[in-house]
């Protein structure tokens, strides 16, 4: 798995070229859309209520477009100017801010009915300078405290992110708890290497009873979320290096077939011997 957050800070990594690439990639679009729908599901806002949401790390507005489609009014913050430029070109509906979420938000208390954030939190885990305000715990604390106060009570904030170790999860959840959030981690498809997705579900207030952490999705992911043409690529890989196909009807293949026929109860399957699958000697 590639880890762009280790290469450069987000505002530099997502420069003009990378920003357009990211937005135009249909696979990215599909993944982003899936995760946004799932995040909205976890956000669990009553369907008839038109809500005002915050999209943290909105980027080029891929997730924002879905928010608009679903009838939400939203505002988004991102640190990469190039991404925001792409968002402007795509004429997204939300209000955009150029903002470093690690510096905290300035929103008044109770401003938003919920917040979502797709593939962002891992960017907060790297220190860019040695200044004390640049350390990940400090930035996370500042981020979560200001976000907590910007959300109304009760509400939820859903973060999809890519942690690279348990320590990172530990750090993020402890900072969120310190800021006053309840909730925890929801892992979708925990046994799948590709479809596995980690969501951090944070709750503001309980409204009397404790809010329940939703269950992650189980089982195998559906077929169509695979990369297209993957099967063909696999088939091509099995071909010989020389470019020739492997001979299909070799000894192993014959033995397997005969075994299969025997298992099915077919009559007169020839016995296996040392001559099985051998080439006859050439007769002139």
């Amino acid at each position, binding site marked *: 798995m590639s880890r762009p957050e280790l290469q450069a800070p987000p505002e530099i990594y997502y420069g003009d070229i990378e920003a357009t690439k990211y937005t135009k990639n249909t696979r990215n679009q599909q993944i982003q859309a899936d995760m946004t729908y799932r995040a909205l599901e976890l956000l669990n806002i009553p369907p008839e*209520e038109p809500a005002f949401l915050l999209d943290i790390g909105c980027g080029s507005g891929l997730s924002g477009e879905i928010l608009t489609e679903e009838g939400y009014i939203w505002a988004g913050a991102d640190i990469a100017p190039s991404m925001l430029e792409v968002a*402007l070109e795509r004429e997204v509906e939300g*209000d955009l801010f150029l903002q470093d979420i690690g510096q*905290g938000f300035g929103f*008044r208390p109770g401003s938003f009915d919920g917040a979502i954030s797709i593939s962002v939190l891992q960017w907060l885990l790297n220190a860019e300078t040695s200044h004390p305000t640049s350390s990940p715990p400090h930035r996370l604390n500042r981020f979560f405290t200001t976000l907590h106060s910007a959300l*109304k009570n009760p509400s939820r904030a859903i973060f999809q992110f890519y942690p690279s170790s348990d320590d990172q999860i530990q750090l993020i959840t402890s900072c969120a708890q310190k800021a006053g959030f309840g909730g925890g981690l929801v892992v979708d498809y925990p046994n799948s290497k590709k479809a596995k997705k980690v969501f951090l579900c944070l709750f503001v207030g309980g409204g009397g009873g404790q809010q329940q952490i939703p269950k992650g999705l189980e089982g195998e992911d559906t077929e169509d979320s695979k990369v297209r043409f993957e099967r063909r690529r696999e088939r091509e890989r099995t071909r010989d290096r020389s470019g020739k196909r492997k001979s299909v009807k070799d000894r192993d293949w014959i033995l397997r077939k005969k075994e299969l026929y025997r298992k099915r109860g077919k009559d007169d399957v020839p016995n296996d011997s040392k001559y099985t699958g051998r080439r006859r000697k050439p007769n002139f």
Partner: protein
Amino acid sequence: MVRLITHNLLACHAKGCNANNFPLQFKDVEIEIREAEFNPDFLRGFLPKIEWKALVDSARQIGDTSLPAEQPEMVDDDFLKSLHHVLLELHIEEGSMTCPNCSHVYPISNGIPNMLLAEHEIA
């Protein structure tokens, strides 16, 4: 694309700027009007969150006087329509916002306000 709906929620977040930091004052603004879908339910739900005085003042600052100085008790359709226009259809494209307390300037360009702080301003 700063609309008054978000401006009405936005306070200064620089270090040590905790009181009297709302609302940010507009300066040298260029405005664009873009029609948006009228959604009365959303507006009704959003009403309690609005700081009315701040909204009216900032609307006047950018030259829109359609809102009454006092928030009316009765919410009728005409009122919601003008509220909709002020909150969701006025887009501030260029200019700047200044914090009334610490006078930090947040420039707006292409409709995107730059909320980044310098290192010494981070709380």
